[in-house]
């Protein structure tokens, strides 16, 4: 990751990319913060009294799910803004789409790191715990959202469909979460989920955790800016293609 990002920093083609001075600084900041986080989490911070060294996974696991939630909330907010807006700027839709994609990536990572942690702590990769189960549903829901974004149609069609879908997801997710919690609370078979998870944080651990949230938030903003600009370019190119096609069609007709 670090190598690739540095390649951007030395790029001389300032205009021909989705980067700017600001995103380059942000990217550098993200790399530095993530490196510091890795050192803090893997070397400096102490082992947890109960969890032992497995707590070191938490420093990456917690920020990933944090980013995912942030991303999905942003998707919903942007979708609502798009639908309520008078001029219906497609920019909101692009931010919503970019954010959802990043969210899907981070939910996947969160599920993955979580299951590795679970393998050590509970001896199994997966338990049918309420939080895990509803996170899995969250993951699939947004994969569906991304699939709908890729459907054929004009940019406005895409924006309208996916915005409505994103708002439906906002209703669906609490319902799924609530029902899964109800399901688990009345069927206490997964008692393993409640054992051995208590963490007693000392100051350094707490600092590492919050530092991780900050580092990943910076990373999220960096990714979002670039991804959303990439979508802008894609949309702009398809509009340009359309302009050319209209022009060609006109000439054909005149002749």
């Amino acid at each position, binding site marked *: 990751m670090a190598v690739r990002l540095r390649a951007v920093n030395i790029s001389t083609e300032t205009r021909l990319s989705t980067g700017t001075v600001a995103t380059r600084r942000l990217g550098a900041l993200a790399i530095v913060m993530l490196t510091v986080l890795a050192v803090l989490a893997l070397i400096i911070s102490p082992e947890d009294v109960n969890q032992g060294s497995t707590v070191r996974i938490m420093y990456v696991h917690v920020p990933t799910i944090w980013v995912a939630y942030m991303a999905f909330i942003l998707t919903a907010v942007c979708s609502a803004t798009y639908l309520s807006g008078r001029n219906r700027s497609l920019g909101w839709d692009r931010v919503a789409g970019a954010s959802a994609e990043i969210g899907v990536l981070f939910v996947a990572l969160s599920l993955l790191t979580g299951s590795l942690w679970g393998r050590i702590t509970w001896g199994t990769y997966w338990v049918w715990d309420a939080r895990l189960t509803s996170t899995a549903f969250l993951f699939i829901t947004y994969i569906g959202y991304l699939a709908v974004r890729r*459907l054929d*149609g004009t940019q406005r069609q895409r924006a*309208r469909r996916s915005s409505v*879908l994103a708002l439906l997801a906002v209703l669906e997710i609490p319902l799924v979460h609530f029902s*899964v919690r109800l*399901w688990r609370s009345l069927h206490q078979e997964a008692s393993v989920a409640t054992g051995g998870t208590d963490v007693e944080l000392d100051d350094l651990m707490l600092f590492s955790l919050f530092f991780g949230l900050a580092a990943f938030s910076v990373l999220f903003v960096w990714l979002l800016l670039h991804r959303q600009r990439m979508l802008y370019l894609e949309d702009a190119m398809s509009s340009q293609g359309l302009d050319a096609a209209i022009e060609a069609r006109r000439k054909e007709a005149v002749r």
Partner: protein
Amino acid sequence: MSPRTSRVNVAVAVAKKDLLVEWNSKILMNQVAPFAAIVMVMFAFALDNDGILQRVAPGLVWLATLFSMLIVVQRSFAVETADGALDALRVAGVDPAAIFAGKSFALMVQLCALETMLVGTAVVLYGVELTLGGLGQMVVTMVAATIGLGCVGTLYGGLAAGVKGRETLLPLLLLPVVAPVLIGATRATEAAFGSGGAEISEGWPWIVLLGIFALVFSTVGSVAFGPLVDE
């Protein structure tokens, strides 16, 4: 909306039309219901144990319902797109909320018929025993679950109608959404069947969950259906 008719009349006409289509074509009866029944039989092969079957019968009934529902929803919109009827409905200025209500209702009726058959199959094949109280609770569960399923099915079926790859898109969108119905209906049915020694009183909280789901998606569906289907 045409000034000569009301939204309710149109919704009734749409529901009647969908049920007439089924009455004439008998797809549900001759194809979907046998499919659901064979799924129940296959479950029995896969699990191969009378005790387990009795215990998990409620979940299997609802799983079979969900799989069959995917087919019924596809069919419900294939009828609309086969000869451009959906376009004709739009040009007729028919209120999307009325289309949503009518199609949802028709779907609910069909699902109820299917569920009744599946519960019957569970009684016969899996040796489930239904008391009178259990039967009453089963009916309430079915109604509550079906309202939710009908609304969600119509909503997402409309979105998938007429797009490329709808056969795969619909399950991807629909199954995560109906997870609460699967959970709620299965637990409520366990109570009704008395599976694993469950008491009837344990079922009511789950029926409340089904009710909330039905309420949310019937309200939201009638608003969201128009923008999702249009264009």
